[in-house]
């Protein structure tokens, strides 16, 4: 390294001496200080004008959000692959949440909504298929009376499920436990009924195996319509859809189908639209495809019972009924 005072290459010692020579009387400096000072003031003023402009005119809220996106304490939302707040996962892709508990004179209802994460297309996911619900407390459990899904075209039911319990049987400290269907058995039973046995069939028992059965307590058959009341035995739920065919003297057939069939579209016939919810018991009307035509001579009657029974359930998931949480 060169230690010579003149070893700084092109530096001129005379210039350095001129600049830092404080012995020179004021006002006699060769440096034009006024211009640099004025320049600094002009620079500061220019920036100050910009700052004032930025404050008064200001960026949009969107600009603010974008500008602040990296600062702590400011949330920048992102698309979610998790369930909405408060929803508990009950299947791989469906969450459920208790929305309301209603106690009324005919019975009590727990209202449940279901949702998929925003990253999942709801159209790709079948509705939640629940075998049954029960309310669990430290004192024990109360099984559902019935569950309902909103009938209508697929995609318009809102994912809402109403779970009904007998009046007064919704404790405030309970949890709503859901048992999702894991497996089902389907069975179709055909029964030929003598034509003179139009009227009421009672206590018809269909064995499903494994100690389970469906009991038709009452089936009313008439040309103008009918009704069915059924229940399960063995502690599991099922869907039981009765279709009655009446053969008339002129050889034509009159068909009686469940009243809810039209509301559920093709769900009864195996469509993947909106499945009927499973029940422990049900009672419904049978409507004739010859609406209002009661004066028909019948020569033969056949009954078809389409039974889908739950044979296995997933591990239970408990939903909080504390609506304040």
């Amino acid at each position, binding site marked *: 390294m060169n230690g010579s005072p003149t070893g700084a290459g092109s530096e001129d010692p005379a210039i350095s001496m001129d600049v830092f020579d404080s012995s020179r009387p004021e006002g006699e400096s060769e440096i*034009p200080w006024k211009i640099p000072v004025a320049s600094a003031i*002009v620079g500061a003023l220019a*920036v100050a004008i910009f700052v004032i402009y930025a404050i008064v005119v200001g960026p949009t809220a969107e600009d603010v959000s974008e500008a602040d996106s990296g600062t702590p304490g400011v949330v920048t939302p992102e698309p979610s692959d998790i369930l909405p707040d408060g929803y508990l996962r009950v299947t791989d892709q469906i969450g459920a949440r208790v*929305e309301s508990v209603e106690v*009324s004179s005919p019975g009590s209802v727990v209202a449940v909504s279901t949702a998929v994460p925003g990253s999942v297309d709801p159209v790709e996911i079948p509705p939640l298929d629940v075998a049954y619900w029960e309310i669990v407390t430290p004192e024990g459990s109360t099984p559902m009376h019935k569950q309902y899904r909103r009938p209508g075209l697929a995609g*318009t039911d*809102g994912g809402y499920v109403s779970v009904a319990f007998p009046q007064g049987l919704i404790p405030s400290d309970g949890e709503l436990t859901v048992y999702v269907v894991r497996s089902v058995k389907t069975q179709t039973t055909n029964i030929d009924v003598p034509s003179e046995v139009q009227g009421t069939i009672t206590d018809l028992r269909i064995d499903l195996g494994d100690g389970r059965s469906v009991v038709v307590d009452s089936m009313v058959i008439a040309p103008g319509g009918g009704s069915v009341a059924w229940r399960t035995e063995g502690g599991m739920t099922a869907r039981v859809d009765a279709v009655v065919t009446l053969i008339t003297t002129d050889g034509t057939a009159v068909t009686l189908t469940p009243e809810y069939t039209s509301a559920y579209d093709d769900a009864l016939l195996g469509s993947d639209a909106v499945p009927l919810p499973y029940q422990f018991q049900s009672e419904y009307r049978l409507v004739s495809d010859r609406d209002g035509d009661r004066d028909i001579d019948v020569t033969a009657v056949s009954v078809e019972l389409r039974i889908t029974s739950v044979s296995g359930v997933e591990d239970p998931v408990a939903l909080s009924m504390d609506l304040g949480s």
Partner: protein
Amino acid sequence: MNARALSLTIVAFLLGALAAGGIGVRVIREVRTDPDATSLPLSNITPETKRPAFYQVDPNETLLASTALIPESVDIEDETLRITYDLISLAPQHGAESGAGTSNDIAVVYPRTWVVLTRSGSVAEATAALGSRFVQFDVDQGTEVSDIVSVSITEASAPYPIEIPFTLSKSSSVVDLGFGATAELVEVVVDGSTTVVHVVVTSSDERPSDLSISAIDPRWTTTVSSGATGESVTLRWNDGQPPDDIRLRAFGSVMVPIGGEFSVFLDDLQ
């Protein structure tokens, strides 16, 4: 001016600008985050946000149960504030056409009562019609969209499926079905071997239900007609003397409240 003076002038200019810039950035940050800086235009105030860290459908969504409410426009004309929105359901709906469950479906949720707070401190409340995709408020003259401080939904409900069995008779002609709905036996007409019974189902304005009625005994034939006050059902019995008690079931949808107050985010539309 020689080269030396020119260099000094440039350096001084930059130093001055940098100093003022540093102070200016600090001032801007203070103004943006100071909650008391309300004398400045609203756009200069960082909007207070309660949005979750993630959204499901849209960054501006408000989740009402499993349905996302997304504001689409906000306008003021002739002292009427109008907010339009879309409702997109997150419910599993396999079997529906892609895109169903959105704008064209029936109402999947009912954002009924809305409240708007403006900068002047005035509060406007409005009720949206069932099934609509907009809500309108009466606001003070001169109110502008930028004057809106907050919008919230204070009452919301969703249509839940239900079946309610009940019994009507001459001695018990009115039944509370719950959920704001009532069934009443209003008339019994006997004509020879035929008995005609009229039943009316009504629901409250606060909880508009959509209930149909049918008799459980298939020997009753049912004719349904809808009116302004509710649904009227005519039951006809043709087989002589009908039973004293008429077993019926109401089925359809009832409105169930969804608890809580929900903030609506209009920042991007203001």
